[in-house]
C-alpha cells in the first residue's frame, strides 16, 4: 500500500530542516465553538501536508486527550490508546495529597505517597516530577499544540501573526515554547553534540534508497497509524462510527464497520527538557579519568563516552579515537555485536546504546533477534533546541573554557532570558534545553519502553547502579546507589560515581496529530455536535 502523504501532516514526512525558525504554541480551549471555527480556518488554509513543501513555511497541529475530549465525545476518546487517554503526567491513585518523601530523589520536587505509574515509568521523579513542570501538569493543562515553522525569525513572526494573532478565537496560550535557530549544516544540542543523526529509515519514504542495509528499514506503521508495523499488523488506532461526517475516511483495519480516525495520523510525544550545560562539562572536566593529550580532551572523551558519539556526531564504535575519520554516509551505519560487544569503544550504558541498542540487546539475545526487537522500539524524532547556547558556534573548547572562566557552577542554569514576541512571552522560566519531540504509532511500546526499559533501568546490559547518564533521574528512592557510569577499558574499567542529573524535564504531554481527513472530521463533528 502506498503512503498517502497528502493526507498526512508534513511533520511526519519531514523535519522542516530548511525552515530554521520554529515556535510551538501550547493552547487551552476556552470556547469550544469558537475554537472549532479557528481549527477549521487552520485546516482549510494553513495546515501543511506531507506533499512537497509549496511555501517556505509550515504549520501543524496536534491535540491532547483533553483537547480531543472537548472536541469529540467520550466514546471516541476511549478508542485511543490508554497512555494517550491518561496523559504523560497521569497519577496512579489520583490522590492529590503530597508528602515530603523525596529527599532521596534529589528533590525540590514533591511527590505523592501513592504509587505513580507513569512518572515512575518515565523517570519523572524529584525535580522532574510533573508537579514542578511549566506546562502539561494539573496546573497548566494543554489541549492543543500548534507547531509553526518559517525560513527565518522575521518570517516566523509574520506567520504567527497571520495564523494566530489575527485569527485565533476560543483558545488561549498556556505556554509559548520558542526554539533556537536550527542550523541544518551543524545541528547541535546544548551540550555541544550533533543531534538527530540516528533517524529510522522508513519503508516507502524517499530516503529509503539512501540506506543500503535493508535489515534496518522499518515499516511505516511504526510511526504512522493505518499502515503495517514491524509485527506485520496494525498499531491500535482510534475509530469512529460510519456516518455522513466520517464519509470518505478509510475503514478501520481491525473493524471494517468503523472508520479509522488514526489513519495517516500519529502520536506525538513532547517533552521540554532543560539542559545544565555548565554542570555537564564541569563534571566531565573535574572527574574524567579517560586518557587523552590534554585535560580538555579528556573531558571531551568522557562526554563522548556518555553520549556514545563525538561532539561532531562520529559514533565511537567507528571512531574510537578523536581523530578517526567517518564519512557522513556511515554516521548511522553501524552495529555493536561484532565490533564492540564489551563496550570498549562505546560503553554499554552510553546514551545512544540505550536509546537504540541495534543488534546488541543484552540478556542473551542474538544479533538478529536484537535487531528485530530494536526495530519495534524506534521513534521518529522531530525536536529542536531552545534558549541561547553557551557558545553560539557550539565549539566544545569554548563551552568548556566558558565553564572554567566562570569557575564552579551549580546544577541549575543561572541566566534566563524570556523573549517577548507579538503573541506573548516565550519560554517563561526556561533557560536552555531541548524540546524533545517524537512521533510513534504506539506510545507505550516505543517511547515509554525506551524510557523505562532501556534508559531508566539500572540492569540494562547486566550493569548495576547505572542509568542513562544524560537523561535519566538518579538516584531514586528505590535505588539510592544508582548514580554511576562505567567506561570499560582494556584492563580495568573506569567507574564514575555521584553523577549529577544533567537534565530536568520541565514540561510534557502526549498528543495526537491527526491526518488531514481526520482533522476535518474532528472539526465537522465538533461543529455538528453543539459547538456551532
Amino acid at each position: 500500500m502506498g503512503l498517502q502523504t497528502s493526507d498526512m501532516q508534513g511533520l511526519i514526512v519531514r523535519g522542516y530542516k530548511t525552515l530554521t525558525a520554529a515556535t510551538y504554541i501550547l493552547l487551552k480551549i476556552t470556547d469550544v465553538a469558537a475554537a472549532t471555527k479557528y481549527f477549521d480556518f487552520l485546516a482549510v488554509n494553513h495546515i501543511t501536508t506531507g506533499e512537497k513543501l509549496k511555501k517556505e513555511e509550515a504549520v501543524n497541529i496536534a491535540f491532547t486527550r483533553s483537547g480531543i475530549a472537548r472536541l469529540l465525545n467520550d466514546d471516541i476518546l476511549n478508542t485511543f490508546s490508554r497512555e494517550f487517554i491518561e496523559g504523560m503526567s497521569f497519577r496512579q491513585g489520583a490522590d492529590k495529597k503530597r508528602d515530603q518523601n523525596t529527599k532521596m530523589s534529589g528533590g525540590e520536587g514533591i511527590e505523592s505517597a501513592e504509587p505513580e505509574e507513569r512518572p515512575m515509568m518515565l523517570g519523572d521523579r524529584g525535580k522532574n516530577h510533573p508537579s514542578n513542570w511549566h506546562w502539561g501538569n494539573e496546573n497548566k493543562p494543554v489541549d492543543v499544540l500548534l507547531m509553526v515553522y518559517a525560513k527565518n525569525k522575521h518570517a516566523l513572526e509574520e506567520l504567527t501573526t497571520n495564523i494566530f494573532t489575527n485569527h485565533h478565537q476560543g483558545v488561549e496560550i498556556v505556554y509559548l515554547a520558542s526554539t533556537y535557530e536550527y542550523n541544518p549544516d551543524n545541528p547541535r544540542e546544548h551540550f555541544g553534540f550533533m543531534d538527530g543523526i540516528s533517524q529510522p529509515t522508513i519503508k516507502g519514504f524517499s530516503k529509503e534508497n539512501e540506506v543500503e542495509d535493508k535489515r534496518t528499514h522499518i515499516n511505516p506503521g511504526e510511526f504512522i497509524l493505518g499502515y503495517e508495523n514491524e509485527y506485520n499488523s496494525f498499531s491500535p488506532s482510534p475509530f469512529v462510527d460510519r456516518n455522513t461526517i466520517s464519509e470518505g475516511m478509510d475503514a478501520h483495519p481491525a473493524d471494517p464497520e468503523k472508520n479509522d480516525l488514526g489513519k495517516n495520523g500519529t502520536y506525538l510525544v513532547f517533552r521540554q527538557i532543560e539542559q545544565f550545560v555548565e554542570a555537564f562539562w564541569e563534571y566531565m572536566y573535574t572527574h574524567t579519568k579517560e586518557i587523552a593529550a590534554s585535560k580538555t580532551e579528556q573531558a571531551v572523551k568522557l562526554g563522548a563516552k556518555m553520549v556514545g558519539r563525538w561532539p561532531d556526531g562520529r559514533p565511537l564504535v567507528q571512531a574510537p579515537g578523536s581523530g578517526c575519520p567517518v564519512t557522513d554516509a556511515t554516521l548511522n551505519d553501524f552495529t555493536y555485536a561484532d565490533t564492540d560487544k564489551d563496550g570498549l569503544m562505546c560503553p554499554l550504558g552510553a546514551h545512544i546504546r540505550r536509546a537504540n541498542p541495534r543488534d546488541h540487546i543484552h540478556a542473551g539475545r542474538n544479533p538478529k533477534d536484537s535487531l528485530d526487537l530494536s526495530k519495534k522500539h524506534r521513534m521518529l524524532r522531530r525536536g529542536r533546541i531552545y534558549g541561547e547556547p553557551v557558545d553560539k558556534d557550539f565549539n566544545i573548547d569554548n563551552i568548556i573554557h566558558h565553564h572554567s572562566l566562570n569557575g564552579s557552577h551549580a546544577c541549575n542554569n543561572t541566566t534566563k532570558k524570556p523573549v517577548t514576541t507579538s503573541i506573548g512571552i516565550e519560554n517563561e522560566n526556561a533557560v536552555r534545553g531541548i524540546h524533545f519531540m517524537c512521533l510513534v504509532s504506539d506510545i507505550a511500546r516505543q517511547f515509554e519502553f525506551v524510557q523505562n526499559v532501556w534508559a531508566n533501568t539500572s540492569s540494562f546490559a547486566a550493569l548495576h547502579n547505572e542509568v542513562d547518564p544524560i537523561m535519566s533521574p538518579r538516584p531514586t528512592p528505590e535505588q539510592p546507589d544508582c548514580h554511576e557510569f562505567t567506561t570499560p577499558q582494556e584492563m580495568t574499567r573506569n567507574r564514575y560515581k555521584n553523577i549529577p542529573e544533567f537534565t530536568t524535564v520541565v514540561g510534557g504531554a502526549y498528543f495526537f496529530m491527526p491526518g488531514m481527513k481526520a482533522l476535518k472530521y474532528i472539526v465537522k463533528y465538533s461543529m455538528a455536535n453543539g459547538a456551532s
Partner: protein
Amino acid sequence: MHRIHGGFTAAFPIKEGPEVKSLSNMLKFLHNNNGPGAANFELSQTTLFVSGVVLPEQYYKTEKLPPTFVLATTYCGPLKTHLRDLIATNKNILLKLLMFCKNFNGGYDAPDDEIYAFLKKHSYHSNFNSRCNFISKQDTQNEKALKNEIEDYIDSAQTQGAFKGLSAMQIRKLIQRHIMACGDKYAWALKPCKKNWREWLEIVRVYITYQLLKITGLALVGALVAPLVLTIAALFGYKYNLTLCLSGCIPLVFIGIVLGNLMTLKTKTATRPPDSRIKELAATQLNPVLNEMTAAAPLKRGFLRPHLYAFILRVLGLVSSITSKIPTVSNIRWLVIDNKKRLVFLSCFSNTTDFYVRDFIVGDTAKGVNFMFTHGQGFPDAKWMFKTKGIISDPEGYMHAVHTGQHVTELWYAHEKLLTADIINKNRKIRNGLFKWMTEEDAREWLKLL
C-alpha cells in the same frame, strides 16, 4: 545439600462466601506489613521467591472453575527440605492462609506434618525454569558483597595508580591479595564454587532426557509416517500388503483428526479490557528492576486439549533449562490446574509486565510462547499451535488476553529485588574466576566482568 532450583506451585480451592475477599485482604496485609505477624520469607534460606494470588472463578465451557488460592515458590535444594523450612519459618502465615481454603481441617495448632501433607496434596507439576540455577540465597548475597568489595578496591587502586603498567594477571593477583587480606569475611571465595555430584547429575539428566526426547520424537514421527509411505508404495505397485499398510495408517489418521481439530478450531480473541483494570495491574509493576505476574485462563475447547497440553507441559518440565529461552526471566512456569482445565502462568522478570510479555514476540521465542499461550481462552489462535499467527501476527489480541487473564499478585517476595538473573550469574562468574587458574587472555576477559 544441592542447589538445584525448583518451582513449587499449589492451588487450593477457597471456601465459599466472603472468604475469597478476606483471603485477598490477608495476602495484601501480609505483603505490606513488616511488623510482628507478617510474612518473613527472609528467614527461610531455601526460599527465593514467593507469590500468593487469588484466582477468581472462571468458566471452562459451562463448568465453573472455583476461586482458587495459588501459592508458588521458587526454592533452592530438595523440595522436602524447602517445605519443611517454609513451615518452620512461616508456619503461622501459612496457617492463616490455609484457613480460607477448602478441606483444610487443621486449626491454628495444626501440626507441621499436616500442613506439609496439605501443601503436597495440592501441588501441581509445571514446566518451571530458573535462570540462576545452582546459586543459593546465601551465595547470591555473598557474591554481591564480593563483587562490591572488588569494585571498591579497583577504584581505590586506580586512584593510587597501583595498576599502572601491570598485566591482567598481575592486576588479578593484586585483587586476590586484597580479598585474602580481608580475612574470614571472604574465606569462602578463595575457591571457585564447584557443583556437587547431585548438581552434575541434574545437568546430565537434563541433557540425556533432551536427547532421548528428540530421538523418541523422531522415532514416533517415523513410526507414524512409515505406514503411509508404504501404503503409497503399495498403491504404485510395490509388493507390500496394502491392508496391513492401511491399517498401519490408522494411528496417523486418528492423530491427524484430533490434532487437525485442535489446530483448526477458531476461537474468539480477547478484546481490550477496561483501562481501569489495566491501571490496577500496572500499579503492581512499579518495582524498578524485578517484577512478578500471574495470569490464568481456562483452556480453550477441544476434548484432547487438556490432556495433550498437560502432557507436553510435563515433558517440557523435564528439560525446561534447555528449552526455555526467554532472557529477561528470573523464573517462569506454566501449569494446568482444576483437572487440567485452567492454564496458569507465573513469572518473575526484569521490567514491567507489558514490556516483558510483548518482547516474547521475537524469533524462536515467539513460536514457543505461541504454543504455551494459544491453548488459553482469549489468546489468539496459532497456526499449527505454534508456528505462525497467534501472538506473532496479533500482538494486540495477545496483550488484551494477557491483561484479561492477569491477576494482581497480592503477596510477593523476592530475595533480591534489584538483581536480575544476568547480574546474579555475572557475580557468580566473578567469584569463580577470582582464584581459578587463568591465562593472560582469560584474566583480561575476567576483568571485563567488573
